[in-house]
């Protein structure tokens, strides 16, 4: 049944390197004196003892949702350790897991944890050692709106679900007015944007709506948007651009896209504990307070979308790396895998996430993740 692995894995190597070189060149154009923007972060991480250099090269692939986070880590790590090369191909979660299971990559990145028969296949791939899902990159989905003169907008989950289900179609709907008594809402149709391409962002957003507003949201969850109405746009970049360009619009995007958006502002979500804005800190609260299972280092987080913890932004996500606890072929450089994961899970590594629109892990969750990373280090004999 399992389809053959897609030959994209064999795509040109060093994409990450090219990207790094590209951003380097751009930084140069900016007139800044800094040659490589990753240098300060690399120096800080070295000083903190969070980077342990291992020479060599690893090939990895997986979720595009965490691609920017991994690229940032790779930039910093490779700047600190010029003898190391880490290639991360953002081919998507499915293809990333396939590539890991067929032993083409040293580890895989995935939006959903690897479970059941896939996990068994992963253990087989790890030479009959345990395979672990390690949540490493937190994220959040922001709901962006564009309303002239409206600086703050609060929605509750029910209203949000009904807007995205096209049941509430006008901004001056009594439900929205009641939630925003101090705001002058226009008598205009809501231009609702969603992703037209298959996307983990859509899957997470509809999972959230289904979990918290099952009465208002009875559409399929998954990577395809199946609710009626609204307009599709390709990628988070097009969604935020469409929202910015279209007055009276609303759409959902990954957190990083709202940070420097023009004309688009984030909706504060009120789940009963007051309105909460999408920020890295607020999403981190949700991740830290969500229940998780830790089965000998295999950590699976069950994000609590219905959270009422004060200051917790509910539409949060986490993406995983699927790794071997031991038994990785020497040719796939288990030492470098371990060193890289240790850096990613370190304070320096996690702090980088917050700067680029991802969500750092914290609390017990981060302790658990470090436990898993230590297991990888033992397996690699470091």
């Amino acid at each position, binding site marked *: 049944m*399992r*389809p053959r692995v*897609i030959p994209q894995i064999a795509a040109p190597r060093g994409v990450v390197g090219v990207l790094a070189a590209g951003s380097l060149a751009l930084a140069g154009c900016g007139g800044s004196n800094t040659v490589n923007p990753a240098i300060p972060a690399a120096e800080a991480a070295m000083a903190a003892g969070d980077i342990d250099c291992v020479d060599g090269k690893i090939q990895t692939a997986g979720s*595009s949702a965490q691609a920017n986070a991994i690229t940032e880590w790779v930039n910093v790590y490779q700047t600190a350790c010029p003898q190391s090369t880490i290639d991360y191909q953002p*081919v*998507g*979660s*499915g*293809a990333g897991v*396939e590539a890991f299971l067929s032993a083409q990559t040293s580890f895989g990145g995935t939006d959903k944890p690897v479970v059941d028969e896939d996990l068994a296949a992963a253990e087989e791939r790890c030479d009959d050692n345990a395979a672990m899902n390690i949540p490493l990159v937190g994220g959040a989905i922001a709901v962006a709106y564009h309303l002239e003169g409206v600086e703050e907008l609060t929605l509750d989950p029910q209203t949000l679900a009904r807007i995205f289900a096209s049941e509430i*179609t006008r901004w001056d709907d009594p439900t929205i007015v009641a939630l925003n008594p101090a705001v002058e809402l226009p008598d205009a*149709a809501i*231009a609702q944007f969603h992703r*037209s*391409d*298959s*996307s*983990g962002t859509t899957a997470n957003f509809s999972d959230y709506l289904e979990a918290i507003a099952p009465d208002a949201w009875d559409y*399929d969850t*998954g*990577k*395809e*948007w*199946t609710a*009626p*109405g*609204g*307009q*599709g*746009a*390709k990628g988070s970049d*097009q969604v935020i*651009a*469409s929202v910015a*360009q*279209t007055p009276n619009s609303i759409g959902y995007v990954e957190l990083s896209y709202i940070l420097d958006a023009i004309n688009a502002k984030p909706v504060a979500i009120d789940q009963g504990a007051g309105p909460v804005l999408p920020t890295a800190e607020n999403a981190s609260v949700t991740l830290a307070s969500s229940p998780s299972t830790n089965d000998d280092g295999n950590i699976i987080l069950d994000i609590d979308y219905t959270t009422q913890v004060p200051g917790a932004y509910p539409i949060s996500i986490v993406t995983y790396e699927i790794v071997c606890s031991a038994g990785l072929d020497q040719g796939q450089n288990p030492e470098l895998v371990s060193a890289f994961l240790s850096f990613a899970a370190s304070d320096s590594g996690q702090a980088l996430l917050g700067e680029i629109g991802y969500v750092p892990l914290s609390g017990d969750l981060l302790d658990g993740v470090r436990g898993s990373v230590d297991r990888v280090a033992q397996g690699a004999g470091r």
Partner: protein
Amino acid sequence: MSLLTPPRITGSSVRPGDRNFRFITTGAGITVLVVLAAIAAFLIWKSLPALQNNTGNIFTNEQWLPDADPPSWGIAVLIFGTIWTSVIAMAIAVPIGIGTALYITFYAPRRIARTLGFIVDLLAAVPSIIFGLWGLYYFMPEIVPAAQWLSTYLGWLPIFSNDLDLYTKSILIAGFVLAMMILPTVSAISREVFWQVPKGHIEASLALGATRWEMIRMAVLPFSRPGMISAAMLGLGRALGETIAVALILSAVFEINWQITEPGGNSIAANIALKWGEAAGNGRSALIATGMVLFFITLVVNMTARWVVNRRREFSGAN
């Protein structure tokens, strides 16, 4: 014709150069066929799994859930969107393209004709992603008032009505952008065809006192009809298969909607571009199945075009 047929080379008089060249050209011809057959075989082979476990009717199902359990997907929406955008593009591009070609060939002063012809050809060299981005970021906001006007004053025609009061990301806009993309194809081929109208026909009709319009109507258009049809069909081929510009512009929803000013629409090629990256297993297989349908549609369009051209040729006196 028979005078031009080269003498058949027989027996021992075959020279190595002739033989080798014949092999090379035959090989080139066969390669094209092999590639085409290989593509068809690949599409059929890869789409079989999804075709077998699809619980919906592939031609009437309006859902796209190939990864659901059980899978349910169909191409009704995609075929509708593909053809509907292309029809609108043709409705805009064919008259303008032929008009441009007529102007360049028969009306424009020589210098302007040359420049204009060059510019139209240049339009064909613009990559489709540029058309897509231009359409999305510049053209779309500009055309919204026109779409509003259409729905306000022509809204009694169902296709122009707009119940949502939203005018972006519509089939109309995609049709306009597609029209611009196929315009150079239609125009350039029509121009070639008009140039081939025998000078004698043109001069004879002018000598008989025909006005320029009468000359075009009676001498040029009948002679050029098969050529214009093939120009339109080639344009249609490009419109049907256009991917990225449509993927950027259309709202890409799975819903059949005739109202061309409302957000909506989808097409086979755009759907593949949008879904491929995150698709795996059955999803990929289903996408390939839609690709196979597009492959056969384009094949049929081209064969129909050939058939029309060949049939018309007998009556037009073009040979």
